[in-house]
């Protein structure tokens, strides 16, 4: 999808409800430097969501959608779980895949898009829960990394299977008791960020979604590196407030606790040398651009 195509047919435009006019007029498609700061002031690419009230996955969705460098040229691949309930509300192309198959689907999709649109950079982004990414889909997840497929995998880590009522997942912490896992988990949380690094991901980040600027940076880095170099992985802590017995307003505190010193989700990043070089170049270019813009402003003033 090209941003020029996100317009209405003139002959039927006047029967379209206001929200679609707004989407065409004030969404951030094609806007350079779009980011989380557009949330609340521009037409967002997600308005309603169908998650539990206060679920941190909802704010994670907002930050991710606001951070995409080119939403009009991005295709999401989702999988079954709480996240999949949100995709029908999202104004970005997306495909729902059979539970666990998301990275296999994304591999084929990315390769096909490359052939079909050789001159356009099409970003493919997988977004799935931890059950889909780390348990049932682990084979597909890792094989895509081994093969150096050029797309980003995002895992919403809520440390269990939330959508089916709270079963144990590989990313659950040791000893945790969930509604459908009453005996408590016997082994450690799978160290997927480290596995991702060893399996060939060039950019890996694990963080909570308590700080939008951090999420934005990680998403942008991951997408840029996936475009140019190879697979990237982001693991976001989006606690299931329903399962851990928190109120709607308590998700943020839970994430802040989890990322404080000694917590399970202290932010970490693994960046390959090649990826670091690319990120440095992008940062230098952005700096130069900003400087030039500033100079232009002072000259014209």
């Amino acid at each position, binding site marked *: *999808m090209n941003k020029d*195509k*996100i*317009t*209405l*047919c*003139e*002959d*039927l435009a*006047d*029967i*379209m*409800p*206001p929200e*679609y*006019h*707004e989407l065409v*007029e*004030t969404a951030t498609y094609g806007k350079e430097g779009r980011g989380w700061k557009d949330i609340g002031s521009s037409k967002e690419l997600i308005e*309603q969501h*169908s998650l539990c009230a206060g679920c941190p996955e909802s704010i994670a969705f907002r930050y991710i959608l606001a951070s995409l460098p080119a939403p009009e040229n991005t295709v999401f691949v989702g999988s079954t779980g709480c996240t999949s309930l949100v995709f*029908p*509300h999202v104004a970005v192309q997306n495909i729902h895949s059979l539970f666990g198959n998301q990275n296999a689907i994304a591999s084929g999709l990315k390769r096909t898009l490359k052939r079909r649109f050789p001159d356009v950079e099409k970003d493919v982004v997988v977004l799935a829960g931890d059950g889909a990414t780390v348990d049932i889909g682990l084979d597909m997840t890792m094989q895509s990394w081994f093969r150096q497929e050029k797309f980003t995998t995002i895992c919403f880590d809520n440390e269990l299977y939330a959508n089916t009522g709270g079963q144990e997942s590989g990313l659950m912490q040791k000893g945790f008791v969930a509604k459908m896992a009453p005996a408590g988990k016997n082994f450690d949380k799978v160290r997927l960020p480290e596995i991702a690094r060893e399996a060939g991901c060039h950019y890996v980040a694990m963080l909570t979604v308590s700080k939008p600027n951090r999420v934005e940076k990680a998403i942008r880095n991951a997408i840029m590196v996936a475009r140019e170099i190879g697979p990237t992985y982001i693991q976001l802590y989006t606690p299931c407030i329903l399962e851990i017995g928190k109120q709607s307003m308590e998700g943020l505190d839970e994430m802040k606790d989890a990322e404080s010193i000694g917590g399970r989700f202290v932010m970490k990043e693994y960046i390959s040398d090649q990826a670091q070089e690319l990120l440095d170049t992008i940062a230098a270019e952005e700096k130069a651009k900003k400087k030039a813009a500033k100079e232009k402003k002072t000259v014209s003033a």
Partner: protein
Amino acid sequence: MSQYQVKAGPEAFLPPAAASMGVILPNPGECHIEGRIAPEEEGYEYAARKFLEAKVPTIFPGPLVLWNWNENATKKAKAIRALADALPARLIPMADYRPKYPKIDAEAEINPNHPNLTIWHNKIDVCIFVGVHCHQANLALKIIRGGTDCFTMAMCAQAGHEDACLSFRDATVEKIEKLMAAVNKLKKEGVKSQAVPFKQIKMTSSGRVA
């Protein structure tokens, strides 16, 4: 076994998929009328008559003709507007497929997950879907047949819909224009539109203007 007829409902809370009752899709150049395969030409006349006899004839344009994603979409939108003017018929968009609970403005939009709300609210007795992706059209057509007495039609760009009471296939701009020509021909022959007077809804980003 007698042939199952795809009639206007209300049929049942869960009407059977017409395909499971032996209704087959038309071949190119054909249409189906209540499950019976017929030449396309017969379909135009039948659909035009149904529309003109209706109190609240309505066209439901879907995303494939509402969004300007290629030149053909623009042309189809033009043809649909002309058809609506010729009848006259209401234009109510199915702009996307989000399950919009409970906010849907049933007067101004239709949603595939609860299309019956729009049919009931506006008392729509004859409608046509055009530019709606097949799987969403199938869902909506079945729900409408299940819970309302609306006669449904589909101007499908693919192989047609068994679950509509009347379905064309391989929709093109020309086919929409042929339907309009059939309407104009009947009108010339003296068939009068029975539509209750209405005003087409108009909207901008700041809300409803008419």
